[in-house]
């Protein structure tokens, strides 16, 4: 029966992709996991040494710095982008002329490679020739902004550049969320006598919770994967001041001949992302099924 043929065809057509996905994602993850419990150094060795590589990983100071950095980075990144993105979205929602143009301006950084962003901001925050010099030239002779060269503050420069790049994204999502709110709810609140800031706080923002959730999940996974930006902006330095798990993994695996440790760090990254993601995806699919 030809309808059966079509039905079979549809499954057939998905087989290559399904296989590719299975191999490229799940098999490869398993592979990485095996290496992380093997004694691999320069080349992969398929033995089993338990959690030795993980122990080694967690006793490496550089890794500890990386974990500290990623925590600082991710939290600041999330807080700032969400706050700014929400603020801009609310401002834009006030029936602004040239809204399209402004939106375009806030979003264009997302079209750029992180390398380009890193390069530009590296120049801007250059102590001798960037912001520090400009402000000093304006008269404020003791102004210092050499964070990028200061091991204590370098990580914050990464935050600045990343926030600049990604705030447009949160803005877009919050704006879409705001636009999706039924105007009659607002009117009902106004009839009830609430003032506009009050309405924002008590009625509108709570309704943005799904958007907020999306943003947190998507941004955290972008943050945890940060690699290009750091490399271009600070190169991981000064020293290892801006080392992140991604840069650590890269150098361990491809430069320092420590495949096992590199794989272990990759598995750590995976587990962190899975922890935030799996509950989110599961809920999304549940609600779609019930809907």
């Amino acid at each position, binding site marked *: 029966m030809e309808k059966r043929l079509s039905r079979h065809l549809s499954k057939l*057509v998905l087989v290559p992709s399904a296989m590719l996905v299975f191999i490229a994602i799940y098999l490869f993850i398993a592979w990485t996991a095996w290496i992380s419990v093997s004694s691999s150094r320069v080349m992969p060795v398929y033995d089993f040494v338990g959690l030795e590589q993980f122990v080694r990983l967690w006793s490496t100071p550089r890794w500890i710095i990386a974990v500290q950095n990623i925590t600082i980075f991710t939290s600041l990144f999330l807080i700032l982008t969400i706050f700014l993105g929400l603020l801009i979205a609310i401002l834009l929602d006030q029936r602004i002329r040239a809204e399209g143009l402004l939106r375009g301006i806030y979003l264009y950084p997302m*079209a750029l490679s992180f390398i380009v962003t890193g390069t530009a901001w590296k120049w801007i925050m250059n102590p001798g020739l960037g912001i520090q010099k400009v402000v000093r030239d304006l008269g404020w002779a003791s102004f210092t902004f050499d964070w990028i060269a200061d091991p204590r503050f370098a990580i914050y420069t990464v935050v600045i550049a990343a926030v600049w790049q990604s705030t447009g994204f949160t803005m877009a999502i919050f704006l879409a969320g705001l636009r999706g709110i039924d105007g009659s709810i607002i009117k009902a609140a106004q009839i009830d006598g609430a003032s506009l800031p009050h309405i924002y706080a008590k009625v509108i923002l709570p309704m943005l919770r799904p958007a907020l959730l999306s943003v947190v999940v998507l941004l955290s996974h972008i943050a945890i*994967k940060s690699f290009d930006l750091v490399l*271009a902006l600070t190169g991981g330095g000064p020293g290892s001041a801006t080392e992140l798990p991604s840069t650590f*993994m890269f150098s361990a695996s491809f430069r320092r001949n420590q495949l096992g440790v590199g794989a272990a760090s*990759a598995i750590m990254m995976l587990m962190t992302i899975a922890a935030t993601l799996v509950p989110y995806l599961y809920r999304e699919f549940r609600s779609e099924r019930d809907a």
Partner: protein
Amino acid sequence: MPRIRFDRVFIYGSLIFIAAIYLMPLWVMIATSIKDLDEIYAGSFVALPKSITFEPWAKAWATACVGTECAGLRGYFLNSILMCLPAVAISTLIGSINGYALTKWRFRGSKLLFGLMMFGCFLPLQSVLLPIAFTVGRLGLAGTIWSLILVHSVYGIAFTTLFFRNYFITIPDELVRAAIIDGAGFFRIYWSVILPTSTPIIVVSCIWQFTSIWNDFLFGVSLTSGQNAPMTVALNNIVNVTMGRKQYNVDMAAAMIAGLPTLLVYVVAGRYFVRGLTAGAVKG
């Protein structure tokens, strides 16, 4: 939405101020890239160029040093194009058929399959990078553009399937049923009924894929080197490896060259770019 009783001036003022901050880096890149090197070292980085020169651009394109080669970005630009076009086409094509099969010919487990595929969008590439490198080596593609084309196509499928699936799910099933009664089969329906209505999402998919593949660095730096590297890797090399006096103007020109294609796409078709961004994000 009702108006906040703020001063309109405050709102516009804030927005314009923020816009200025956003545009500043772009301005700085452009301005620096057309300045004379002495002027850069002497003057302020936000100031207008006193005299305009396009020499930095010429240098960046043809003579800047990437590693030991000093032939500018031109070759790497080409590499990126060679890498992007096939990968965009392949991932978009496969994604569209996947989205079609998953939504219009549902079967038990199609939702699960889609979920498993979707995970690919969130995958931290570090967790599969090592196996990718080994596999690419085994396939004899190590260090070539082909490795990048392969890798970007495969991992792009997760995104493109997501786009097309979310789009096709809004097409009424009755359309497919009518076509079945008319006697059309799986591919005929795809070709005559579904594809003609897909133009918007095809554009979204292509723009999104082009942007992420062009801007990729991780795969580029892990799987290729030297002559075969894409733009982003070359740019990083130019900027981070300097001998002698740092030529900031050339650096910025190089960054501009690297960023212009995606920026141009964004300016021309930004609307579709936004649709791609929010495609998977806002659900209710």
